[in-house]
């Protein structure tokens, strides 16, 4: 998140995502096929303030109470399956990175389009336990357990996706393109 990040009317912060920043945080570890109903149960809790108090409680009731800014969410395969809903609430409660074995395609598209730091690192669940400290070094393409030193590779994004992240998301990317094409 850039220092000039601003808040919109829905209480969602915006700003470009700097993939070159090395991230380090305490791990919250989840299992396979965590669905967007659990991440973003907006039908039950329509405002961001309510969502922040209930995200992920279907799997870990203590999560919304105990998560701290700077924490990292680690998950198994197929993270974010189900409906096409963004995981903005995870960023709002302070999660600085999501690292999963694999990510369901619509959750991945949503995370790219909203510039939410998400990383696919097959093998991640084998090298880190709940509560340990994880380091995500995107430029080096490595995720590392700080205590044990165990590390694995993460998947780099293609240049177009990195550009969308740097723009702060796809709507912002679209705005820049529209401005270029209409003010020429």
């Amino acid at each position: 998140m850039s220092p000039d990040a601003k808040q919109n009317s829905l209480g969602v912060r915006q700003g470009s995502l700097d993939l070159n920043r090395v991230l380090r945080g305490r791990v919250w570890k989840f299992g396979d096929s965590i669905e967007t109903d659990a991440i973003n149960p907006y039908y039950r809790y329509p405002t961001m303030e309510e969502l922040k108090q209930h995200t992920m409680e279907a799997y870990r009731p203590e999560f919304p109470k105990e998560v701290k800014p700077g924490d990292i969410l680690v998950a198994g395969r197929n993270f974010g399956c189900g409906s096409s809903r963004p995981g903005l609430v995870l960023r709002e409660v302070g999660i600085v990175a999501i690292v999963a074995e694999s990510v369901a395609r619509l959750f991945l598209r949503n995370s790219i389009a909203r510039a939410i730091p998400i990383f696919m690192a097959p093998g991640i669940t084998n090298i880190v336990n709940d509560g340990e400290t994880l380091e995500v070094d995107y430029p080096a393409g490595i995720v590392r357990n700080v205590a044990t030193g165990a590390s694995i590779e993460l998947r780099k994004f293609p240049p177009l996706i990195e550009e969308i992240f740097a723009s702060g998301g796809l709507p912002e990317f679209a705005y820049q393109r529209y401005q270029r094409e209409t003010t020429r």
Partner: protein
Amino acid sequence: MNQTIAEKLFSRHNLTGKQVRAGDILEARIDGAMVHYHANEPMHDLAVQAGFKDGLPRVWDRDRVFVLLDHHQPTLSQKQADENALIRREVERLGIRCFHDSEPGIAHQMMADYGLMRPGELVVGNDSHTISYGALNTGGTGITRADMLYVLLFGELWFQVPQSIKVVLNGRQRNYPVAKDIILYLAGKYGDDFAGNLSIEYSGTLVPGLSIDSRMCLSAHGVEVGAKLAVFPFDETTRAFLAKRTDRAYESIAADAGAHYEREIVLDVDTMPFVVAKPHQFGNVSPVDEVAGRPIQQAIIGSCANGRFEDIEIAARVLKGRKVAKGVRFLISPASQQVYLQCVKAGLVETLLEAGAQVVTPGCGVCQPKVGFLSDGEACITATTRNFKGRKGSMKADIYLAGPLTVAAAALAGSIVNPKEVFDVA
């Protein structure tokens, strides 16, 4: 060229005109966009956040944008009414020509009812079940709200061409809809992401006899097994379905001999048992016999997976001259107004009402949920899309997914039962 359907689809729609292969990233030209304008973060607000002070400045093609008010129809609160009013103003301001305003129904079914997608087209929607358009040999795929903003402005979007998986369904025709059992069985056997990021191509001896209703169930559930596309071959069934609904030209799409598949799965449907997905995941599947006897308080048939004529028709056949078990709420929601009318004309609604079922207005409401909530400790068997914890209200309720025959049988028995015990399965 040895191309899969996905490779052909994206080559045909590549802005650069170049042929693409699985794994390639491209920017694709979009043929149609099904838009949910509403929900907790309206499209208008997203546009304003991005910098468009007055909201979206345009849509790229007024005839290729389809706005349907399916999730909020009829409205259940003033908040929803206010949102719908905003959408009406936006549709008028942007000059969008295809707007289904006062007609309840699920967007995806209405897209089919009115022939708004055709074979070989690339049609996106900001709803995960847009993948159901593959039933009509259309390249239908779900995108996100933010993706949709980009599509509305430019009629283009980035994609990665998926690898493909061939799913071969062999077997004889049935006297009941078998599609739901097939996809649940596959999810149980191969995992709920066995088609993760892949393009499913359906084929096999069962396919020519599968109705469009059944194909839409299988394609819709592509997303429950992770797929990007879930495409059926174009055949006489597709042609006949579309002949009544569109006069626009189209070019169907088929894979070349020698195309590369990451995986091939062959299912002998004749040896497959009736199955259910137990709480709380789509892939938590077991034969129905393993949970037989489990009492239920609610049964549902509806949604973009199972709210079609054949799903409701089988319920009427099971319940004809019989009664829904005491203490069971049996909700049936046709997928669209057109489907509802078809059911009325066929006499199904009379049969179902006489049996004690409740017919709910067409739309997404029984799945999302808007109606038919569960209380703590209750159990529901449902032919809808998902069984996640809390999906129908209480976090302490159990949701079982099953085919419409199994659901109707349970509604009759008051507990989960093998349909063979109440229906002459053939």
